[in-house]
Structures are given as C-alpha cells and as structure tokens.
C-alpha cells in the first residue's frame, strides 16, 4: 500500500513537472514575448527593453527555465506587473477557493441526486421511475451548460426575480446573499453532472445486479433491501468514486463559461480577466494551479479507490 501511494505521488510530481515545463515553453517561445504581451503594441522601445530586462527575458533560456522551476519549487509564484505588483498567489488562490466551492457544492448536489436515482432506475429497470430518470439524463446530456445557465438566469433573475443575477459576496460578509448567488451556478453545473453520474450509476448497478454474488446473496435468504443496497451497491460504488473524482477535476478546470455567465470570480473568471488585461504572469500560474488541482484530485481518487477495493489494496 505504501509503495502504491509512493508510486502514485511520484507519478503526480512527474505530471506537474511536465505541465510547468509546458507552460514555460508556451509562454516564452510563442511569438510576442511576455514583455510585448504586457505592454501591448503601442509601447515605446525603451519601456519594452526595460521590461525585458526586469523580467529576465534577456538571460539565456536555460537560466530562465531554472529560475522558473526554482521559484515554483519554493512556492514563489512572483508578482503581477499588471496588478500593481500584487503577489500572484494572492490573486490565484482566493479565486481557486471560490471555484472549488462552486465545484464541490455542485458535485455534492449531483451525487445526492444521481446515486439514488441511478440505483432505483437500475433496480426498477423498465418501470416508470426508470423512464423518468432516462428523460432527465437525456435532457442533462443534450443541453449545453451555457444554455442551461442563461435559461436559469432569464427565468429566476429576469422573469421571476427571485435570485440575484450573479455576482459574488463573501460568505462572511453576507451569508444569505452569498448562498443565493450560489444557487443558479450550482444548479446549472449539478444538473449536467447529475445526468452523467445517474447514467453511470445505473449502468454500474445493472451490471452488478446480474453478478453471481448477488444471486448468492439472494440464495442466502437476505432481504431485497440488503441485496440491493449492501451487496450490489458496495460494488457499484467503487467505480463511481472514480467517476465523481474525474468529474470534479474536470469541473475545476472547466468552469470558465459558467463563471463568466454568473460573474463568479473563480479561477476560470480570473483567467479570462487576466487574458483580457494581458496579465500573462497571472494566466500562467492560474493554468498551473488548475492543472495541479486536477492532478491532486486524481491522486485522492486513486487512493480512495484502492482503499475501497480490497483487491487493489493488497496487491
């Protein structure tokens, strides 16, 4: 088990190294260097040269690379010129926190809906419950997130002005407002994710319900409840953990559009804003942090999986 954890950790570190190198390469070698990106095309050659010097862009490339990796390793994400020399980490991490909040609540809601729905529609395959679940999942699958988001916005903020049309107030400042601002983005994301997870849960349950050990459980004289919700569910839940984790990881990196629609200042929103203001020093760290979150989530998922499935834990 420890060896497994060590191997997965090492794997994660390797991925992060590759990602940070890729970010370095992309931001340094594309035409229009960071200094030009920051200043725009109408900057004077003197300003441009001064900024190149300041950013260390005149150093040999390997020196720049080592400095980049060294800073990252020390957790020094630098200062943003565009943001008045604010620490980049003071911009990126609060944004990450807000994105995680949105993603976590959405996943939670999706799981709460999808697990029972998927399970019941598998147990009652072909009945009206199953058909309703199918309509719901098909809708969730076929509707693009932004359509759902804008639709909700029109319905609940325009037609029936029950909720604020987006925005962000910290929880500590105004808890009620904070939560009311969360409702629409969470509903939007959760409905799509819930559709995916319901379908996954249903398929997994159906497979498990026809397994030999489920027949054994019935042959022992166990109640249908115990057979379905203990013997079958425990087996169907293991792959679900992975699916939930993967979906969560995807959400963290894929919130750009939703955060834009609901003006939620998360990581995706910060990325767009930084691109618009040419704050490449923020964008590169935001990309990196987004990737790191994905890697960490997947690591946690793998560890949970191996902990849940006795067959992996021992080998």
């Amino acid at each position, binding site marked *: 088990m420890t060896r497994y954890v060590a191997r997965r950790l090492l794997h994660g570190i390797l991925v992060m190294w590759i990602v940070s190198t890729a970010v370095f390469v992309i931001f340094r070698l594309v035409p229009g260097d960071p200094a030009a990106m920051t200043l725009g095309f109408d900057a004077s050659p003197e300003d441009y040269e001064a900024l190149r010097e300041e950013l260390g862009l005149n150093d040999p490339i390997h020196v720049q690379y080592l400095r980049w990796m060294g800073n990252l390793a020390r957790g020094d994400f630098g200062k943003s010129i565009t943001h008045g020399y604010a620490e980049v980490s003071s911009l990126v991490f609060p944004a990450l926190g807000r994105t995680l909040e949105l993603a976590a609540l959405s996943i939670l809601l999706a799981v709460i809906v999808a697990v029972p729905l998927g399970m019941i529609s598998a147990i009652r395959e072909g009945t009206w419950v199953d058909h309703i679940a199918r309509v719901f999942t098909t809708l969730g699958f076929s509707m693009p997130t932004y359509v759902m988001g804008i639709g909700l916005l029109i319905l609940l903020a325009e037609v029936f002005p029950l909720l604020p049309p987006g925005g962000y107030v910290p929880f500590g400042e105004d808890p009620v407002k904070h939560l009311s601002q969360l409702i629409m983005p969470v509903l939007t994301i959760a409905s799509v994710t819930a559709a995916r997870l319901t379908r996954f849960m249903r398929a997994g349950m159906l497979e498990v319900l*026809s397994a*030999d050990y489920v027949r054994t459980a019935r042959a*022992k*004289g166990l109640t249908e409840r115990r057979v379905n919700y203990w013997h079958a569910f425990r087996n169907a839940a293991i792959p679900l953990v992975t699916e939930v984790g993967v979906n969560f990881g995807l959400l963290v990196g894929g919130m750009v559009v939703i955060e834009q629609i609901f003006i939620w200042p998360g990581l995706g929103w910060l990325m767009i804003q930084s691109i618009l203001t040419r704050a490449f020093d923020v964008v590169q760290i935001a990309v990196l942090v987004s990737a790191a979150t994905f890697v960490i989530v997947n690591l946690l998922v793998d560890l949970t999986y191996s902990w849940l499935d006795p*067959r992996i834990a021992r080998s």
Partner: protein
Amino acid sequence: MQVPLLTVENLSVRFNMPDQVINAVNGVSFSLNTGETLGIVGESGSGKTVTVLSILGLIPKPPGEITGGRALFEGQDLLPLSTEALRSIRGQEISMVFQDPMTSLNPVIKVGEQLREALWTHNPSDSRSNHRRRGVELLDMVGIPQPERRYNQFPHEYSGGMRQRAMIAMAMANRPKLLIADEPTTALDVTIQAQVIETLKAARQETGAASILITHDLGLVSQIADRVIVMYAGRIMEEGRIGDIFSRPRHPYTISLLASIPSIQQRRTKLYSIPGQPPDMANVPPGCPFHPRCAIGGDRSACRSDSPSLLDVGAGQRAACHFTDEAAIWARERGT
C-alpha cells in the same frame, strides 16, 4: 409410502429474449425423499441450473418466466411465493452451492462477514459474537486452515477450492433440509475436485440434508447419488436408481453418455463420443429432441414427429424414448 421432501411437477421455464424464446425447461417432474441424494446430469445448456434456480425463485424475471408446474417443498408450493415469503426458505430450508466459486462470493465483503450474514438473516436476535463463533466453527468444519484468520479475509485471498469450501460452509450454516450443489467442482482444478466433494459429503452427513448434485460427470454421480436424472434439451430423458441406470440404461442418450465415460473396468477399446452438438435451445428439433444425434431413432418417423413421454420402464426407472427395448439391446451389444 414416504412423503417426499421435494416434488417438482411439470415444471416449465422459458426465457423471453428480444428476438427469440428459449424453452429452457419443459415439463420436468421428479421427487426427492428426506436424506436422499439426487444427481442431475446432462450436457451444458440442458436446463439443469434453470430447474433448480426456479425452485428457489432465483430466475431473473424478466426475461425468465415460469410457465407452469409446481415445486412442493414439504407440501408447500414454492413457485407462487413472494420474494419475502421465499426468504425463510432460502438459505434456511434449502441452500445452494454454485458452479463458479471465483464469482459467487462478493469480492468487497470479507468471507467471515458473508458467512455471518447467512446466520444473522435467519436468526437476527442471536448476538453478533455468537454468529462469529459459529462462523469460525463452520470454516473449521469445511476444512479451512486457521479459520480465525481466514474469517477476516477477502475472497481474493482464498484459493478457488477454499472459496468453494466457504460456499459450502455458508450453505450448511442454517442446517438446511436440502442442499443443492450446481456443478460444484466444474470450475476447480482436478486435484482439488475430490477434496471439495469430500467436504460436500461431510456437510451432507453433518446436517443430514437431502441433496441435489448437478454435474455433467456421470462418474461423480455414481459415487454420490442414490438416484439420477438425465436431462436433454430441458427435458428428462431418463430417471432411475443409480445402479439401474448404470447396469440397465434404457435411453439412447443415457447409453451414449455412459459410453463416453473413460473407465478402466470396461472392456471397450474406443471411447464413444456422441455425434453432433447439443441443440440450440431456441430451435429445438421437433419430435424427440435427441433424434438428430440418436443412433437408433435418427431416421424413424416416430422419433422425428412425436415427442416421447417419460414412461415407466420398471423398477422405478423411467425413460422418454419410443424404442426403449431396442435401446436396451443396443446397450448390451455395446457392452455398457
């Protein structure tokens, strides 16, 4: 005359598949007395498993459908019972050991836990520690070494033979009156098969249970069973006491099966093998289902058009064949 423990009458089961109907069991009747062992033999697909699963209501419905018959256990018909009513029969009065021990235990639940559950579900008021003690005792009884330690292990830490022993322990946990073993050794190594059979015999002795042993190994049946049923295409072809079936088989299919057992006692030089394939259960030939492969009736019109019924041929032996006398002569000539 003893009242049988189990009487199956005219059992018919079919599977309604999207594109075809499979008549898996067709009018099967047999009975079993207390303490008796019945063997069911037949090639794969002949309906052996479906027959016994139906008795306990374990056929998946849909696509399965029991289209007729009764299964009287101690006088009570089990077929119309609800799942909830069947619960007190399953695992308590009638238990089953399945064919594949690798897939029959839940992979994510400890073996001891699965064993304890079998005890707990029928005696919920008994204490957890009592169930545990009895569980360890059962593992010990079926010959699992270090039962205390093994109790807390997962199925994947057991060998195939040990898993089947654990299944047997689970099946005998509540001292059932009937123990059904569906090809309990087919999936196991040859070297382990004999040990598992010994364990089964011991379990049967210990509980005094009647048993049904499904197998396609006639040799195994001869060692264990009192009576045997030979099935083909979801029908009973022949039934009788084990000695009678071996010494005076009356059905060409039984004779062919016997002729294909490798055995030293017999003076045959060449092993017989039945020509052709078992029928596709969705397209069973009309008349006698065995006729395309039968050495006697292959081209007789009676065999091709009329399905023979299972009739008494003396001494409690029954056979479903239009030409049992010729079959008996053929058997003698073949030296089976």
